[in-house]
Structure formats: C-alpha cells, structure tokens
C-alpha cells in the first residue's frame, strides 16, 4: 500500500509496464529529460534511457503515425499527447489508420498503441489546454476509450491499456493529477472495461468519469445531508460502455443524470441517455438529464468555473429529475 498522487500512480504504472515488457516504449514531446509537462514520465528517461523513452519531434501526427509503424514491428508504444487540444493534428492517423488497420487486415495486424491524453479544464490554462475531446474518439469504432478518475485506477488501468492488443485512448483528468489516494498495487484490478459504483445510493444514478467523478461524489455527500441518496457510478470505460452496470443502477433508482465536462451537445451523455431510455424505459421516473459543458468553445479561464459543471449544477440536474 502506498499513498500516491494520480500522476505518480501513472508514473509507477508506466514503470511497471516497461519493466514487464521490453517492447513498451514511451514517446512524445518533452517526455524524456523533462519527464513530461505534468511529470507523468518523470525518471523513466533516467532509468530506461533514450531508446525506450523518446523525445519526439514536435508533430502529433508523426507521433501516432510512427507509433503505428513501431507497433507493426512488434513494439508497444505509449504516446503522450501534451494537452487535449493538441491531439487534433494526430486525428487523421488515429481515426483513419490506428482505428481501422486491424479490421482491414482481417485481424492479422494488431496495433497495441496507447494514446495518453491529459484532459479537461479547471487549471486556469489558456485555450486548447482544457478540452474534453472524448466523444470524437468514442464515435470512432476500433478504438477503446477509457478514463481514470483516481490514483488506484490510474496505476492499474494504464498497465491494462498497455497490455491490450487494440489501440486505447487513455484519458487522464489533469486537474486531478495532484490528488492523492492509497493505492494497493497488489490488489486484483477490475477489468479495464468495467465501471464501478463509486458510492452506492438509492434515489438517483449519477454517471461520471474522469475529473467529474470527484465532483459527483462531493455532490452526493451534499445531497445526503438533505436526505437524498445519490448512487455515483464511475464509468471508467467510455467505449465500450459498461451498460450492464449502468442499467442495473438505473433500474434500481429510476432516475439518471450523466455528468461530463464536454459539451452536452452530441456528447457521450447523449449516447448514454439514448441507451438508458431504450433499456430502462419502464423503470424511469424521469428523462435522463445531462450536466455538462455548454455548446460553446471552452471559455477563457476566468469563466471556466461557469462553464464546468460543478457540484451545484450536478445537484440542479438531480433536482430536476425529481421535478418530473
């Protein structure tokens, strides 16, 4: 058992994966000597050398494109995209190549590439540094998409992602990088695509992932004081979704709120709402509601507290499910 920040847990997970398998490579901008701008790869360059921890030229399409080539040659590249907003230059390689090549080869080619993306806002950054681009990737078949919300999951899930034979888009909640928790490294990890009930409750299901899990847990604590019991589910896996867990919870509570930082318009919450409505229609007391970012670009940071769904906005959505 050790107490780790989320960033350090990822760092330890990467280290363990590199020790386990010499084919695992770290690639990205400033991941070497600097240890990444969030220090997630800190110390790996020193211990594994520049042949395993590669400071790449400044080109995201190049990072993913060459990672694909390395994977074709039997390597397991773990690519760091420095900030969410900078994954877009690599979108072509991810969407047209990484996601589709295994299928085109009738399964003969495997692309065990992990794309790590620090995501979300709340750190007072300038534009392009606070985006939540997950829906672009969940919309792309062939990619597995996951998001960790806490240090223990970060430690285990990054290793699962690296062991996975399919490409994995791995979202890291950047405003939670410095949050600490106890990590049991020896514990048996939940399968990567399973969600988890982060806090059991009876009145309403609140679905969240990544940075919003903590917000929703705080909302649940606040709601409990007013006698309302929220069941918070940490989705962990965004594609595929752990629909069994989601449906089970909603059938129990009869109400459902989905929270994410990304704009609600065409966001992951829309997909979840549709599926919950189809599968749990007769159990629902109210429509599935969403608390999320507005249908606008991410605002200047002095307005991000307005943009990001906070505890009050989550509770407001919860209240509205009781108003039906």
């Amino acid at each position, binding site marked *: 058992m050790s107490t780790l920040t989320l960033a350090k847990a990822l760092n330890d997970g990467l280290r363990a994966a590199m020790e386990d398998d010499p084919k695992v490579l770290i690639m990205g*901008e*400033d991941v*070497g*000597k*600097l*240890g990444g*701008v969030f220090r997630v790869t800190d110390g790996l360059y020193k211990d594994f050398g520049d042949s395993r921890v590669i*400071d*790449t*030229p*400044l*080109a995201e*399409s*190049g990072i993913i494109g060459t990672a694909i080539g390395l994977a074709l040659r039997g390597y397991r590249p773990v690519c760091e995209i420095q900030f969410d*907003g*900078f994954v*877009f*230059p690599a979108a072509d390689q991810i969407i047209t190549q990484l996601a589709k090549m295994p299928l085109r080869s009738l399964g003969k080619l495997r692309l065990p590439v992990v794309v790590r993306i620090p995501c979300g806002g709340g750190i*007072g*950054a*300038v*534009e*392009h*540094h606070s985006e939540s681009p997950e829906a672009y990737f969940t919309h792309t078949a062939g990619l597995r998409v996951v998001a960790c919300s806490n240090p223990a999951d970060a430690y285990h899930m990054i290793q699962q992602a690296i062991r996975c034979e399919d490409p994995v888009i791995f979202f890291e909640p950047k405003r939670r990088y410095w949050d600490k928790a106890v990590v049991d490294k020896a514990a048996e990890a939940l399968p990567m695509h399973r969600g988890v009930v982060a806090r059991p409750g009876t009145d309403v299901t609140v679905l969240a992932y990544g940075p919003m899990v903590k917000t929703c847990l705080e909302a649940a604590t606040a709601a409990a004081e007013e006698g309302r019991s929220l069941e918070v589910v940490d989705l962990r896996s965004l594609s595929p979704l752990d629909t069994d867990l989601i449906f089970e919870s909603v059938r129990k509570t009869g109400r459902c709120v989905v929270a994410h930082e990304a704009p609600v*318009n065409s966001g992951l919450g829309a997909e979840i709402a549709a599926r919950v409505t189809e599968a749990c229609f007769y159990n629902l007391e109210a429509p599935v509601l969403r608390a999320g970012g*507005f*249908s*606008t*670009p991410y*605002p*200047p*940071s*002095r*307005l*991000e507290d*307005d*943009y990001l769904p906070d505890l009050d*906005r989550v509770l*407001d959505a919860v209240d509205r499910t009781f108003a039906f």
Partner: protein
Amino acid sequence: MTVDASRGAEAPPELVQLLTPEGERVEHPAYDIDLSPEEIRALYRDLVLVRRVDMEAVALQRQGELGIWASLLGQEAAQIGSGRALTDADMAFPTYREHGVAWCRGVDPVNLLGLFRGVNHGGWDPADHNFHLYTIVIGSQTLHAVGYAMGIQRDGADAASIVYFGDGATSQGDVNEAFIWASVFNAPVVFFCQNNQWAISEPLEKQSKIPLYRRASGFGFPGVRVDGNDVFACLAVTRQALKNAREGQGPTLIEAFTYRMGAHTTSDDPTRYRVATELEAWKLKDPIERVKAYMFKSQIGDQDFFDAVDAEAADLGRDVRKRCLEMPDPAPLEIFEHVYVEPNAMLAEERDQYAAYLATFEGGE
C-alpha cells in the same frame, strides 16, 4: 551500408550579422542597412520597452495576476528587427511569444495580457493592426499566412505577409505544407523562424539534423540565417525578404538564430533540462547590450538618452501593471457570445437556461 560522403561536408552555416555582440558594425556583402541616428535610437527604445513589458508580465504572473506568460527575453532583436521591417499594409501572423512584433504593430501591450490572464482569447482586432491573433497550436498559423499571401497576390496589392514560428514548429506537418503551398503558388510570404534553440525541453537536434534555413532549398525558395540577436541584421534581412515577396519573387525562410533566455513559459523549469553555462554564454550576445555599446561608441546615444529610455520603460511597466489589474473579468453570459455570427436557437436556449440558473443564486445561498 554506404556512407553518404556529402553528409557533414557541407559548408558551415552562414550567419548574416551587421552588429557584433561587442557592438562593432560589420559589413555583409548581400545585406546592408543605412540607419539614421534617429532610427537607431528608436530601435533601441523599442528593444528596451518590450523587454520591460515582458518583465512586468513575468512579475504579474508570479503574483497570480496572469495564469501563465511566455517570455520573449533574448528574442527582442529578432522581433523588433523583423517587426519594424513591415509596412502598414503587410500582415503578420504570430505565435504566442511575439510581444515585440505586437509592439511594432501598435498593439497596446496590456491587450496582450488578456489571453494570459484568462479574460479573453485575444484582446485586439487583427484588422486594426494587421496583426493576427496569437496562435497556440504549434504551426497552424503558417498556413493561414500563406493563404493570406495568396489573397494579396490575387488582389494585386503591394503587400506581403509574414509568419512567425519556432524551431520546434518546423517539425509540424502544417509548417511543411505551408512551405509547399508558398513555393508552388509563389506566395508573397516571409517565414520568420525564431530558432531560440529550444522547444520547451527539446533542443534543436530533436527536430533537425541540418540548419533550419537550409530546409528552404528543398522546397524551392531561398533560406537565410540571420543573427537573431542583431536588430540591424534582422531588420535588413526581413526588409529584403518582404521586398522580394512584394515584387513577385515568392517566399523566403528566415532563420533568426537566437536564444530563449528565460523559461519556456512561467510554468516551466529549465533547470531540469539545460545547463546554466549555456545561458551565460548567450548573455554575452544580449540583443540590447550590443546596440547600447555601439551607440555609446558612435555617440548616437549619451547617458541622458539611455536614462530617459529607462525612465520611460519604468513608467510603461507601471502603466501596464495598473491597467492589467483593472482588467475586468468577463461576465458569465459572454461564454455564449460570438460562437456564430448570430446565435442559433439551441444556443440561445442554453444561455437563457444558464441565466435563469444563475438568477436562483442571487441574494440567496
């Protein structure tokens, strides 16, 4: 494996320099410049004032008034020299570090701070200054500058565009595509690359095995390396490249060889990846000191002049600070503005809902 005999056998890079680090004026066969004492004093003043604005911004960040700041320390000559080569009709496309070019374009320094303070995404109207908004996504703006130049060409205007980018940016696909477009369309654009030796923690060797200016020849246009800490040389070389562009001779790549004397941004810690002696060596090539030395020697500036510029810089620093602190936070509902030319019904509904939601807190809670 055969060895490529030409590798490493190329001539060493040539550096256009008109003013040595010691402040000696030197001749260059291809580039010269005739500057009046008045013009030299004006350049010196520019250099000192933008350094002062930059210093103030770093201090404001340290005090929590800005979220982050990208310092131009060490790059003043590259920016002032190239910026002062522009005519009003020319159009400049910056990265996030071109505070000196902004100054030359008449952008109020305090307006540069908004983006870094988090109150806006860019605090000036590009059309007022022919100075585009800052671009944070590395390399994107190079294509915009080329397209803009293609427009200038179509319009038959007597103008050119100039685009700023860093050494790291040269690796981006967009930048290489911009080179191709500019070449194929013979666009009136100047590519001004400030090679400050670092892309955050990555030294130039991580991006290129050849001097950057030599990349141009492969794309079919001239490239030149200029001493980026020499304001005279930067002015002369950029002026010539802009003139060539306006006269239909197509693009030029200028590599301004300089040094990022500060951290990448205020969030960065350069001690993790570079040695202090490197900075010490570059301090001897400081872009401002050499002009001052030259001015003293040639009696273009006396102590009274330098004191007056310093006093003006101090006033400017105070003024920028004061007006930065006065910058109001935007109102929450501004989030919904300017997303489209006119708001659509869905967005208007979201805005109204949020306004109603905010109203529930008023006076209560």
